[in-house]
């Protein structure tokens, strides 16, 4: 119970996007190891009207290619309640390169390093996911998966999914 609360608290703290320390900023934004459970806790932490979750890696060409588009959409909708959750699937020794890449891309919030068993991680995020990178998920504010794409995400599809996810909460509140 306490462990679960701790995981949830960690998820909320990261999801809230607490600013990184000066030292951390110099090397790039903070990247913390997280299991699928912890990542889903960050997705479902209160306070977001929609969440975009992107699983990427430094060596993954389509990940690097799509990243500016993902960040552009994050920047455009963050003020309307979109929470970005970035998960690096790099190996441990590639973390410095991952932090450098995030800094170059203007990421100013903490993110995650995938931890734990691959199969458990993949299936927890979506049984439909083969495990290929990149993978992008959009959730509405209640944590319901609105959109999933593996491979380089089409920016227009992603933006429409974010708009739908943001609209879902408004729609539900209206109908409630």
């Amino acid at each position, binding site marked *: 119970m306490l462990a679960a609360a701790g995981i949830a608290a960690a998820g909320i703290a990261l999801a809230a996007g607490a600013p990184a320390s000066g030292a951390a900023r110099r090397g790039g934004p903070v990247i913390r190891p997280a299991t699928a459970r912890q990542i*889903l806790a960050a997705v479902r932490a209160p306070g977001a009207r929609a969440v975009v979750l992107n699983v990427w*890696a430094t060596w*993954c060409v389509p990940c690097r290619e799509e990243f500016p588009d993902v960040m552009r959409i994050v920047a455009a909708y963050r003020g309307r309640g979109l929470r970005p959750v970035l998960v690096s699937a790099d190996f441990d020794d590639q973390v410095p390169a991952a932090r450098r890449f995030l800094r170059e891309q203007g990421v100013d919030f903490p993110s995650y390093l995938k931890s734990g068993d691959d199969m458990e991680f993949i299936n927890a995020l979506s049984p439909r996911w*083969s*495990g290929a990178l990149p993978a992008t998920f959009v959730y509405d504010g209640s*944590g319901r998966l*609105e959109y999933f794409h*593996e491979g380089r995400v089409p920016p227009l599809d992603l933006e429409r999914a974010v708009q739908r996810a943001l609209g879902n909460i408004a729609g539900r509140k209206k109908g409630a």
Partner: protein
Amino acid sequence: MQLRVLDRWVFGFWTALAVMGGGPVKAQEAPPGLAPGDPAPMTDVKMKNVDGREISIADVQGTKGTLVIFSCNACPWAKAWEKRIVALGNTWHKKGVGVIVVNSNDPDKVAEDDYATMQKRAKQRGISYPYVVDATSDVARAFGAAHTPEAFLFGADGKLAYHGTIDDNAKEPGKVKTRYLEDALRAVAAGREVAVKETKALGCSIKFRPKA
């Protein structure tokens, strides 16, 4: 029987997680891969081997089974598993299981995945089974292969007996707990049913060539 109960429990667990994780998924999904029991598609398509010969999956078919692995030169996961794949391939193709490794990546997208590097890598690693170019990426499409490395093992009856990853730890060979592919190879060679028929691992997406 116990396995069937376990399968149901596992299916139920993941289904519950999926429902918790969300409702309808409206976007493009990964292409559906082959299901256990399916035959291999496009087995007569000739593909250029690192030795210059044109070889099809049918050409390498073994008396005890056939292993098709989609892999490449550049992907860090393929590199991490490379020595283990070579060891399995070199061992099992001598034991009656046909082995072929297929590179479906477009070298225009990842230069290191070109034919010359395949030849160099095959020589460096002492690969004694075919390592071939899927020149249209259509073989990967037909299998529903999505990433590298991804293994498809067919039994002597030609039906898919195992699909998935090599083992449960790409990065640290010394910490592997379950050797999924090797276990499946042993079962297939012995004519037994494979206990774990499908597994997953993270990997590089296949860099498909444009459709003709």
